[in-house]
């Protein structure tokens, strides 16, 4: 078995038993990137020199024979909108193509204290706006299962790099599905935690009331380990939740007897690919065989979720992205007439079309005379969407459905039609608006492209989500599928 097919726990054991060294893991990671990334394009920046230096240092530390933490020495990739001190953080934007952060995001600091090794920064849709990685201003990432297809997005690089065996795990960010949808398209596990569970400090803000960092991994157990390392209260994030963090791996019992599953009928209706639907229904049979029960439920405001999301997220984005003015950092335009012209030229040259489109939409929705009709209205509908979930969760432990209505689409297929592109997010966006946790796990494939099962839980009940996901994985083989590469 290749090193990269091992579970985190197995690699950890091998390191502790001195069967392998951190340097070998880091070598293997860069070798795999050299073999595969010319076709996948998952990375924007590699940090090879530092990673090798750190690996040598960690190997020295291993000599003393002390038991190490689980993530010790493990090669990881970080989405390029999570700031890393001294390592370029571009958000896949020309505007930040020279941005060298002077501090670490809290999640990055946590990974550093867990002593995982940062291999590099991962490609994404510019400022996390998009669902295909085609909005990267550098180059699109490609799906490791078929390089003519998108890997999903916006955490497309994070998902593709794990699927291609370049890193053991990665961090992504999810605003309307940006961890779960690429995880589904790339056949891996992606977890969006409850809003507030993981610190957003150092995550370049897109839509502050929705953004959340989470892990992308090859299996559910690894997801639990990475979540354990990054979750927790942070005084530097004013929307960080001060809740106690359970031991997530202890929830992985394999037991789902009596688990009450609600199956959202709106996620299996019109527009859902029949093969995706079939894969989800087959997954429910697996749960039934394990003693869980399921019933069809309704989230009646689902049809309003996409409109609500694009108004709220774009409004927040127009405000958040106002900071990119070319004054303190970023690429400044040449020869401006005056200060206002400097803002205007720097922004116009630095931002790509999707980013401009959303800034325009958000600015319009927040502008004088339209605020009540669009932004405030959307905030009220958000309340109704959240209530849909509250009602179902009063009777059910989890909600299940597909992660995305289809498998990955061809590169270029939906460019130029933003609205159709937005409709791909119908199964993930309502969950983001409600702020609850959800995971995508592999549950089948269609024409060689993976299908994801989405498991949605109550706020801060990641344990039940992980337990349900893990039980499925223990009884199926879907998560073992690997793309043929290199």
């Amino acid at each position, binding site marked *: 078995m290749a090193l990269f097919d091992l579970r985190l726990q197995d690699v950890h054991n091998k390191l502790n038993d001195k069967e392998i060294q951190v340097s070998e893991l880091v070598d293997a990671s860069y070798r795999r990137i050299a073999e595969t990334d010319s076709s996948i394009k998952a990375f924007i920046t590699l940090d090879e020199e530092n990673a090798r230096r750190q690996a040598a240092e960690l190997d020295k530390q291993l000599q003393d024979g002390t038991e190490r933490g689980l993530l010790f020495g493990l090669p990881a990739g970080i989405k390029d909108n999570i700031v890393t001190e001294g390592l370029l953080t571009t958000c896949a934007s020309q505007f930040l193509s020279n941005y060298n952060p002077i501090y670490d995001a809290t999640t990055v600091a946590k990974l550093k204290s867990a002593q995982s090794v940062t291999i590099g920064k991962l490609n994404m849709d510019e400022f996390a706006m998009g669902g295909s990685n085609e909005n990267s201003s550098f180059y699109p990432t490609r799906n490791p299962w078929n390089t003519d297809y998108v890997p999903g997005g916006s955490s497309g690089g994070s998902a593709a790099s794990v699927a291609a065996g370049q890193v053991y795990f990665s961090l992504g960010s999810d605003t309307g599905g940006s961890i779960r949808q690429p995880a589904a398209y790339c056949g891996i596990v992606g977890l969006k935690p409850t809003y507030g569970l993981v610190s957003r400090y150092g995550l370049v803000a897109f839509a502050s009331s929705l953004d959340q960092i989470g892990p992308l991994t090859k299996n559910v157990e690894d997801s639990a380990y990475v979540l354990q390392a990054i979750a927790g209260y942070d005084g530097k994030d004013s929307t960080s939740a001060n809740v106690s963090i359970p031991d997530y791996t202890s929830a992985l019992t394999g037991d789902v007897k009596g688990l009450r599953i609600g199956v959202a009928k709106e996620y299996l209706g019109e527009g859902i690919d029949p093969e995706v639907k079939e894969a989800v229904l087959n997954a429910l049979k697996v749960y039934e065989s394990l003693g869980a029960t399921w019933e069809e439920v309704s989230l009646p405001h689902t049809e309003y979720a996409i*409109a609500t999301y694009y108004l709220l997220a774009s409004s927040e984005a127009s405000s958040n992205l106002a900071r990119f*003015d070319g004054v303190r950092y970023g690429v400044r335009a040449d020869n401006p007439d005056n200060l206002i012209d400097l803002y205007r030229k720097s922004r116009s040259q630095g*931002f790509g079309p999707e980013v401009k489109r959303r800034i325009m939409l958000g600015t319009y929705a927040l502008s004088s005379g339209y605020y009540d009709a669009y932004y405030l209205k959307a905030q*009220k509908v958000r309340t109704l969407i959240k209530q849909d979930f509250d009602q179902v969760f009063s009777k059910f432990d989890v909600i299940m459905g597909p992660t995305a209505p289809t498998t990955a689409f061809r590169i270029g297929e939906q460019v130029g039609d933003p609205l159709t592109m937005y409709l791909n997010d119908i199964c993930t966006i309502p969950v983001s608006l409600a702020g609850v946790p959800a995971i995508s796990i592999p549950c089948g494939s269609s024409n060689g492209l993976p299908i994801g099962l989405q498991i949605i839980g109550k706020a801060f009940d990641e344990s039940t989500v992980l337990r349900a996901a893990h039980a499925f994985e223990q009884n199926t083989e879907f998560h073992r599928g690997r793309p043929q590469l290199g």
Partner: protein
Amino acid sequence: MSITLKDVEHVANLARLELSEQEKEQFTGQLNAILKYAEKLNSLDTEGVAATSHVLPITNVMREDVTKESLPIEKVLLNAPDEEDGQIKVPAVLE
């Protein structure tokens, strides 16, 4: 409500974006399509429904009012496109 090319120019100015003629036309069409889609929200009665700005039951978060060390100047200036005497330099604000 339908967006005109003039609206697009106005909003671009508010957002400090300089759009080409082609971008203006494209955005006029696309924003109209998106906003038309968003009008479906109007079919919902939200009378008496509270707005959700974010899902957590937290409002104002205060920290202790204690002085802390600021970032060193050289770090702050590390990414500045232009600087002079420890300050970030920009073109003239007034003509």
